[in-house]
């Protein structure tokens, strides 16, 4: 087994990891503040992909991209206002069910609009170009994704650590009620969280779908779940944690996809075991292991239960 055989899998792992990271930040921020698994986030990501498909058909790409981002942000904002805000005082289970309901609604809407057909994602000129790295053929987006991800994460961390809104966010995620007593406008902080999450999801969807043939109504579900796992893995509420978790999951997942070829060429097994089936399932194995060994995740803070 040579390095050139593993390289393509690692490359696409890093790229997928970057895309996951952008989605996982949305999960981790919302969870940090509302203690809610925003099941609809994966579908917001899918809807962003579909919007891009429809918008790019009717307007040039340099307009379609910003319009998609703005519409996705509006969607995230609207979901929070319509489906989560009325339930702020309700038990946590109700909000989670509401999130599942929104996810169901978005998927069904997408099914209705697309007729269940696969919609081809437009190729974004510079990003979709083929390039060669150390003998491996890939698209430019593979190399660009981690860079974009890291730049965005740095900006986000600076925003959270050095602005007033960022400080409010940290306060709210630490203690919801006390923050409210201190005069922080909870609603605007929560809206801001959803705006940032949706913005990153929109950018993530552009990078993600460039690598894939198309968008279907269910294409958001699995990445959504995986990104939540990434957020838990890194320690929910922690942005660097989510990014690290996402990269680990992305790389592991792609290595498993290639494990068969590697094992066969290394002579460990004589015929393929079809282990690629488990590339999705592996994420959840990882989740269960981390919950066992370190329930707060890699970078999570320890929490104590109060009676």
């Amino acid at each position, binding site marked *: 087994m040579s390095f050139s055989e593993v390289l393509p899998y690692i490359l696409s792992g890093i790229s997928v990891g970057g895309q996951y990271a952008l989605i996982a930040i949305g999960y981790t921020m919302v969870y940090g503040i509302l203690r809610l698994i925003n099941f609809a986030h994966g579908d917001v990501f899918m809807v962003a992909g579909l919007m891009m498909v429809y918008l790019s058909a009717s307007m040039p790409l340099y307009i379609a991209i910003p319009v998609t981002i703005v519409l996705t942000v509006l969607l995230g904002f609207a979901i929070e206002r319509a489906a989560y805000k009325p339930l702020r005082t309700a038990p*946590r289970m109700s909000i989670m069910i509401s999130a599942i*309901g929104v996810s169901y*609604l978005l998927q069904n809407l997408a099914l209705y609009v697309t007729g269940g057909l696969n919609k081809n994602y437009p190729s974004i000129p510079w990003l979709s170009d083929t390039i060669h790295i150390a003998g491996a053929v890939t698209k430019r987006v593979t190399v660009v994704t981690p860079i974009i991800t890291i730049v965005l994460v740095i900006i986000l961390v600076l925003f959270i650590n050095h602005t007033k809104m960022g400080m409010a966010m940290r306060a709210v995620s630490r203690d919801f009620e006390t923050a409210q007593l201190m005069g922080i406008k909870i609603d605007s902080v929560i809206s801001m969280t959803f705006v940032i999450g949706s913005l990153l999801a929109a950018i993530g969807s552009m990078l993600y779908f460039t690598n894939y043939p198309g968008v279907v109504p269910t294409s958001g579900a699995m990445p959504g779940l995986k990104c939540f796992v990434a957020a838990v893995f890194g320690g929910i509420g922690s942005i660097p944690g989510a990014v690290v978790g996402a990269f680990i999951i992305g790389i592991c997942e792609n290595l498993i996809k290639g494990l068969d070829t590697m094992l066969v060429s290394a002579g460990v097994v004589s015929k393929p075991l079809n282990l690629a089936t*488990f590339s999705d399932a592996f994420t*959840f194995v990882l989740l*269960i292991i981390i919950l066992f060994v370190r329930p707060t995740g890699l970078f999570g803070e320890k929490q104590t239960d109060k009676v």
Partner: protein
Amino acid sequence: MKKSTKLLINLGLMAALILVILLESMFLPSTSMIFPVIRKGAIYALVAVSMNLTNGFTGLFSLGQAGFMLIGAYTYAIFTIPDADRASVYMYFNGGAIHANLPVIVALILAGLVAAGFAYLIGLPVLRLKSDYLAIATLGFAEIIRAIVQWNTLGPITNASNMLRKFATFESIVAGWRTSSPAFNEACKNAKWLPTFLTTLMPVLICGICIAVIVMLINSSYGRAFKAIRDDEIAAEAMGINLAKHKMLSFCTSSFLAGIGGALLVMYQATVKASVYSSAMTYEILLIVVLGGIGSITGSCIGAFLYVACSEWWLRGLDSGKFLGISAPGVFRNGFRLVVFSVIIMCVVLFWRKGIMGDRELDVEKLFGRKKKHGGGSGPDLPSGEVSDNG
């Protein structure tokens, strides 16, 4: 009301239910939509009630229902395919590795047991987790199970990602009786409604029995312990309730019944494919539970029948261009039904949080105290095993 009177009325209601199905199958054409709706509704009611047992009564937010249904469905299907048909079903795997052929009832119970066994293994690590972590971990396990079933290396047992078919269904069981007993065959020839009646009665009876078991469990001291855990875990523990034991009991019972529900569902559908049992199916069942009311068994039953009747029957027109006499093929095209449906469900979640029943039950006393009619087309199928909650 005395306990014995209540029991009598309950038995009477069950007899009435069977009579209604009998009359329907005698006087309605066998192609009427009411029969599939009753069959599927009963099965969904069972699965929804089993989900309600963990989510509504024990407060364990588990999202693994589709996974346990999948296990039940596959166990049942694998063990009831006739030997003669195995070669054609497992055409890519040389007729498969398993050649046992169990009677239907045994296979059904086995389906439940295997699902419960998996639930036990999964429960050991997972039940220690709290609310949303539990939800995501059980959801994850359902995905892992789905991946394992579709794994090519297990193909000789599960047929990998190919479909399983030709196992015993409601129709094929009745057909089997006809070939084995000439007298029964003669009866079927004389009374054309008999096969329809039997194929509809079978799922209703099995589901009724299972739901009755859950009702009894909930009314027992175990059920009270479940509710105590739901209301306050720490207080329950302080009162001497063994949390781990009771959570596990609730989780395994729920999975047992979900396994049977899954097996019944494939009996109804006649084919089984792992890709159908995705998280979307769990969400669907969860939304039924929410619609009916979290923590209400009658609510789940009403919810299931309403859901099935709407999606299979009443709202069909939304998909095929014509609804309530309005013809608008441009709007009412494929998928519109689901959109309308999800909007209704969002409205329930947001504005009518308690669902149809809240956490109350519809029982004999209420029914006969004031003669009140209940739920839409699902009416005749409700009383299968309704016992009062305060008994």
